[in-house]
């Protein structure tokens, strides 16, 4: 059963505009959330994270918003750049769980059109 869902497999955005990537989760025990970015033929790299005690975390052009009541988080990229074209994975974790404690979504492929 997929506990972390990214319902949009792909997204296209014009350069300079905002990209919004969405992620939903079902497990109310999740208390830490991460976004990873993956280019073709490379491994995923950590992008930004948020703890459940916050509802927003910002790092440069990247902002993650968390809505705990809706079990929803989103990644905003402003302004979008062609180099942002990649697959973005949402991941969630719960305190007190074992070694395998990061659950990934299926990814959203972002294409930023110059």
């Amino acid at each position, binding site marked *: 059963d997929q506990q972390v869902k*990214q319902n949009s*497999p792909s997204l296209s955005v014009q350069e300079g505009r905002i990209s919004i990537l969405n992620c939903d989760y079902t497990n109310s025990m999740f208390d*830490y959330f*991460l976004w*990873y970015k*993956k280019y073709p*033929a*490379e*491994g*995923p*790299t*950590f992008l930004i*994270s948020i703890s459940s005690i916050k509802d927003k975390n910002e790092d440069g052009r990247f902002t993650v918003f968390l809505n705990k009541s809706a079990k929803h988080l989103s990644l905003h990229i402003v302004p979008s750049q062609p180099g942002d074209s990649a697959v973005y*994975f949402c*991941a969630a*974790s*719960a*305190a007190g*769980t*074992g*070694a*395998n*404690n*990061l659950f*990934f*979504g*299926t*990814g959203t492929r972002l294409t930023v059109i110059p």
Partner: protein
Amino acid sequence: DVKVTQSSRYLVKRTGEKVFLECVQDMDHENMFWYRQDPGLGLRLIYFSYDVKMKEKGDIPEGYSVSREKKERFSLILESASTNQTSMYLCASSRGRGYYGYTFGSGTRLTVV
């Protein structure tokens, strides 16, 4: 700079061959993972290990085995490669809990012909 190193970036093997994918991390991490990534299916966990000589099945362990004889090295073995095992294989490591996140290697693109 911390690293997870996968021995091969691209690999082509024949059906029925025994295939070894090697992964080494230099961060003294306890946990190591093997995933495969396929279009539309995201990252699927094959096996993970939380200590030397310890291993646990992930979501799709069939057709695979693993070996962790040393803390820094985690090997994925395809006992008899099949064409449906053509995929991008990703190794990752983590320290203790998911709060630290996972550090991934660059991946091995395996093609089985």
